[in-house]
């Protein structure tokens, strides 16, 4: 073998090896890229699932048209009454305390039309507590709105909140016990249970949490519950706490807190 031949052979081999390495690298690189793109696309699609209304989904009849809240006493509010929005999560112990202390007063003000009370369902505690009880409770309450028992159902959920945070709500409680307590029966019960079983209001609940997070971040600068907004402005919870629920004038004082916050 001449020196020249050998040199040529070696160059050809080096070129072939280089080509092989390139092919390998491009192949593996393309495979990694493909997995990355497919994975991201699936994740984004999967995450978006259930966020938009699908066939068979139900919007609670007393939901506001923007899908943010549910009117607790629809059509009761007097002209100029402040819109009072309560952000809550059914698994939030402080929300239960708040309901116990001020829920009655809020309902009094709303039923007499002094405030336009709206409930805004948040479900972020599901993520912190790694369960789905907030979403299920939200679905149950909004299904009860179809039967016309939203407010009472809402109160009963908090009344039955497990003592230990994170224990969640049993399906039987939400599906059978509470409906019986608030007086959903007969055909209404059948359609309520169908609504709960099919999670017909899930899209509404998810959207409510989504828009709620957005509004809480924009107005209160943090996502926490309970939070109250009056006419889209944050209400200081310490101002609310200054009102003694046992005070005979408590309802009037609470209204003043809301009006002050609303800038009315």
């Amino acid at each position, binding site marked *: 073998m001449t020196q020249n031949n050998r040199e040529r052979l070696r160059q050809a081999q080096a070129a072939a090896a280089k080509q092989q390495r390139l092919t390998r690298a491009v192949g*593996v690189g393309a495979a990694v890229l493909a997995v990355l793109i497919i994975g991201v696309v699936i994740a984004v699609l999967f995450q978006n699932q259930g966020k938009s209304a699908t066939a068979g989904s139900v919007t609670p009849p007393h939901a506001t048209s923007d899908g943010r809240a549910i009117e607790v006493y629809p059509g009761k509010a007097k002209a100029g009454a402040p819109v009072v929005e309560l952000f809550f999560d059914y698994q939030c112990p402080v929300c239960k305390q708040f309901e116990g202390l001020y829920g009655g007063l809020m309902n009094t003000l709303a039923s007499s039309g002094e405030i336009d009370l709206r409930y805004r369902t948040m479900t972020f505690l599901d993520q912190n507590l790694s369960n789905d009880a907030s979403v299920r409770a939200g679905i149950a309450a909004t299904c009860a709105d179809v039967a016309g028992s939203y407010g009472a159902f809402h109160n009963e959920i908090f009344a039955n909140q497990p003592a230990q945070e994170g224990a969640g709500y049993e399906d039987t409680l939400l599906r059978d016990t509470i409906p019986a307590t608030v007086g959903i029966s007969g055909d209404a019960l059948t359609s309520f249970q169908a609504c709960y079983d099919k999670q017909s209001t899930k899209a509404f609940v998810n959207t409510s949490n989504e828009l709620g997070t957005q509004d809480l971040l924009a107005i209160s600068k943090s996502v926490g519950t309970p939070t109250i907004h009056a006419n889209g402005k944050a209400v200081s919870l310490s101002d609310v706490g200054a009102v003694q629920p046992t005070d005979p004038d408590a309802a009037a004082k609470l209204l003043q807190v809301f009006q002050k916050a609303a800038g009315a």
Partner: protein
Amino acid sequence: MTAVPARRPWQEWVTLAARLVLGGVLLVAGLLKVTQLDASVQSVRLYQLLPWEVTAAVGAALPIVEIIVGLLLITGTFTRLSAVAGSLLMLAFIIGIASVWARGISIDCGCFGGGGEVEASQTQYPAEIARDLGLLLAGAWTVWRPRSPFAVDGWLFAAPAPSDDPVPTNEDDKEPTR
């Protein structure tokens, strides 16, 4: 091409450790989040750094990216490029945590899934930043010295196997090393 030395320089073992640690943390962080994409999106939102519309995509994509970069680092595939990606992720996390700290927002970092509002006293920003700085350092080292044992790169970018070489492999035939 350099011949594989009988003894690897110690730096290569440091790189092995660095890429395993960074890759392992990214893989675990990604796996813990990938089953809870909603929580991941919520965590990204609580940082209040990105426009609302972007947070959903970032929150959903982040766990996937973490898993893939983690796997690439663990297997030593495209080590330098993967280490650049891993380091950029760490840099982004450090900036995110520093920014919520500076703005006085009280959240759990959400680094390993979960995440949410916590009491101001429960935030662990200095520890979280220190941890991510350490991981950034591991990434930077791997970018600087990407060669390491047990790496797919060793096969991917291997010199031609001597057995394929019909040319007598005299010492004279070899190219000068480096």
